[in-house]
């Protein structure tokens, strides 16, 4: 080195001291390591599957399932395929998640606002609820609602009933169903049309930059378009509807709409549990809105309800929505606890029964994980978009 300096040549840097080279080498090493580890895993799995003579491939999805499922949203029978059973389980998961999210949101917002209420008793009751529910495992609550509460419900013959139309017993909750004569699809179509028009109108008024009073008008027109329009069609077309009341026949109630106890228990525990977390998000969201905002609103003469609805909540929502999303995601993932109480969701039907019947653990678990993963990523992406859409545009 000394020679170099004496010769007046520039100092040739050791390539290992070049950050770029080092980063490249390091990344290459990690990639190789991960690759080798992954290869070893795959290699082991392949060898094991062959050595043990375990069937593999996705052909089993077309085989006849041969087992029954207690709740199916699409046509399914014992002769259907395993693939169909997968679809049934997936839809049941979506059903629980959808109902659970709605109830948890309503309950969570109520509790979050109640916890900040100026009414001492209401605030304390909300606090007790939140602190109790949050600190007890969900699975335990699920078992409690299913096994301990189910035990106290009567047999179908001695059901609790309301107006002889709604029944509760240890086989579930039963309520009258409304069947529309003729094409009920038409009504759904009209309602969808109304929704589209309402949304279009709102965007049109917004794009015209008209005074905000028109926007309120669009808001008021929406329910007319969505609900009254189908009703109008219904009467004009002279359609008739029938109410089917559940009736005790044989072992239980037949007819009407029914919710099996597993669904009720799962939805109850999921939404009660998640509501406690949502309430905390809502509370911190509201606290994040500066006090001056509500004071100014009150100074303008807005009554307390409107202060909350028009000033505080819209601002709090920006803070609330990101953690709210993760709560929705958690709820969806937690719905997999269904397997503990035999609600036929994705995990219970597919990773449970189908895995057992076929013995093809690798394929079954892979499909299950891929479905959950895609659901999570989709929701994340959607919320990412929504968040950017809602973000405060600062000057």
């Amino acid at each position, binding site marked *: 080195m000394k020679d170099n300096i004496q010769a007046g040549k520039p100092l040739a840097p050791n390539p290992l001291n070049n950050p770029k080279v080092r*980063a490249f080498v*390091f*990344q290459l090493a*990690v*990639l190789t390591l*991960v690759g080798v580890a992954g290869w070893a*895993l795959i290699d*082991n*799995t392949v*060898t*094991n*599957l062959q*050595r043990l003579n375990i069937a593999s491939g996705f052909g089993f999805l077309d085989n006849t399932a041969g087992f029954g499922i207690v709740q199916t949203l699409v046509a399914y029978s014992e002769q259907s395929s395993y693939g169909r059973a997968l679809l049934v389980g997936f839809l049941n998961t979506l059903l629980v998640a959808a109902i659970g999210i709605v109830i948890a949101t309503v309950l969570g917002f109520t509790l979050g606002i109640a916890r900040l*209420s*100026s*009414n*001492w*008793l*209401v605030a304390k*009751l909300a606090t007790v609820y939140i*602190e*109790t529910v*949050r*600190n*007890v*495992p*969900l*699975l*335990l*609550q699920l*078992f*409690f609602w299913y*096994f*301990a509460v189910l*035990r106290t419900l009567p047999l179908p013959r001695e059901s609790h009933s309301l107006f002889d139309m709604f029944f509760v017993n240890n086989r579930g909750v039963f309520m009258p169903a409304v069947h529309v004569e003729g094409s009920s699809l038409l009504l759904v179509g009209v309602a969808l049309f109304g929704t589209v028009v309402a949304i279009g109108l709102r965007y049109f008024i917004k794009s015209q930059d008209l005074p905000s009073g028109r926007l309120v008008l669009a808001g008021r027109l929406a329910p007319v378009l969505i609900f009254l329009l189908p009703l109008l069609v219904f009467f004009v077309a002279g359609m008739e509807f029938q109410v089917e009341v559940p009736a005790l026949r044989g072992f239980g109630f037949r007819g009407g709409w029914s919710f099996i106890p597993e669904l009720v228990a799962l939805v109850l525990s999921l939404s009660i549990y998640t509501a406690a977390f949502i309430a905390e998000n809502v509370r911190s969201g509201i606290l994040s809105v500066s006090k001056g905002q509500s004071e100014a609103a009150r100074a303008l003469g807005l009554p307390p309800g409107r202060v909350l609805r028009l000033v505080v909540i819209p601002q709090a929502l920006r803070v609330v929505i990101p953690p709210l999303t993760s709560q929705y995601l958690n709820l969806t*993932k*937690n719905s*997999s*606890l269904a*397997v*503990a109480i035999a609600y036929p969701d994705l*995990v219970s039907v597919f*990773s449970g029964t189908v*895995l057992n019947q076929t013995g093809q*653990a*690798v394929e079954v*678990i892979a499909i*299950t*994980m891929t479905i*959950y*993963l895609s*659901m*999570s*990523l989709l929701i994340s992406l959607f919320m990412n978009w929504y968040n950017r859409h809602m973000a405060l545009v600062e000057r």
Partner: protein
Amino acid sequence: MSDHFVRTQSSPTLLPPSSRLGVLQWMRENLFSSWANGLFTVAGLYLLTLAFPPIFNWAFLSAVFTGQDGSVCRADGVGACWAFIDAKFNQFVYGRYPAGEQWRVDVTALLGIAGLAPLLVPNRLPKQWFVGFLLLVFPFLAFVLLYGGTAGLVVVETSDWGGLMVTLVVAVTGIAASLPLGVFLALGRRSKMPVIRILSIMFIELWRGVPLITVLFMASVMLPLFLPEGMSFDKLLRALIGVALFSSAYMAEVVRGGLASVPVGQYEAAKALGLTYPQMMSRIVLPQALTTVIPGIVNNFIGLFKDTTLVLVIGLFDLLGIVQSNFTDPAWISPQTSTTGYVFAAFVFWIFCFSMSRYSIYMERRLETDTQR
């Protein structure tokens, strides 16, 4: 001239009107401040009178506290069957761990508490010694004590472990393994090297995107197929691996929050001083980042502690699992057994989680005051 009057002393203050005093005023302000509020109060009170007396009656007045078997709980109108808890208490804590060896579990727990306590309370003791003990010595000691096989201790199979002990083993192992893993993943996710970052993101999002139950199913039915022939893991160990992978992803996200909260100036100053990346991270950035996220880590631990109940789905007997498996003991079957058991388990979990959440809030307050100038 002398008829004007100048007061030389202040007059005694008058009390406010009685309706503005004490309890009444408090009630006016806090319970009946408006028409609607009054309505809420009445509704709340009604709810209380509806719920409280039956619960009190069930838990205390008509409860059974002592008894040799379930026959005492089978009578009509009997409330909680606490005698069941009393009779099975040992099993709820230790599972089927042999009675003569249970001192080993106690010693392990005491060692753990002794190592942890000085870290939780602010004091001047040398923290690095306790951290070193907990991370390097304690796991080894705990394994030797609980499993045995060396030092003249009888081997106790993990299939005999159960109850609160398994709950704590799973939760503590999960958090201890996920903390270092989580730190590396968080650093990886913030790395400037694309390969490292993408691999970290993939790992984190993969585990966060799937439910713990499928991870546990995978660990219990698929992990054995991943291993070379003849190698197999203990069932509890498989569950622990699943829990550790799962919670490290969540831990990484918490730590990342902490890393983001360290001002850029700190990084720049460290680099300007000529510190290498490991030096910068271990001496400057991580100490600050980890301190700010202590509440987050504790919250993570609470979540993990509650999630340990899921191991019962793959056939391990944690606290909830062992309580539940005792419901079918023919000697103790009664209409109240299951409700009592669930309430007891809920209470135990609640005590743990609630105290941890209080601790987390306490730390949060302390950190807030620490950073205020």
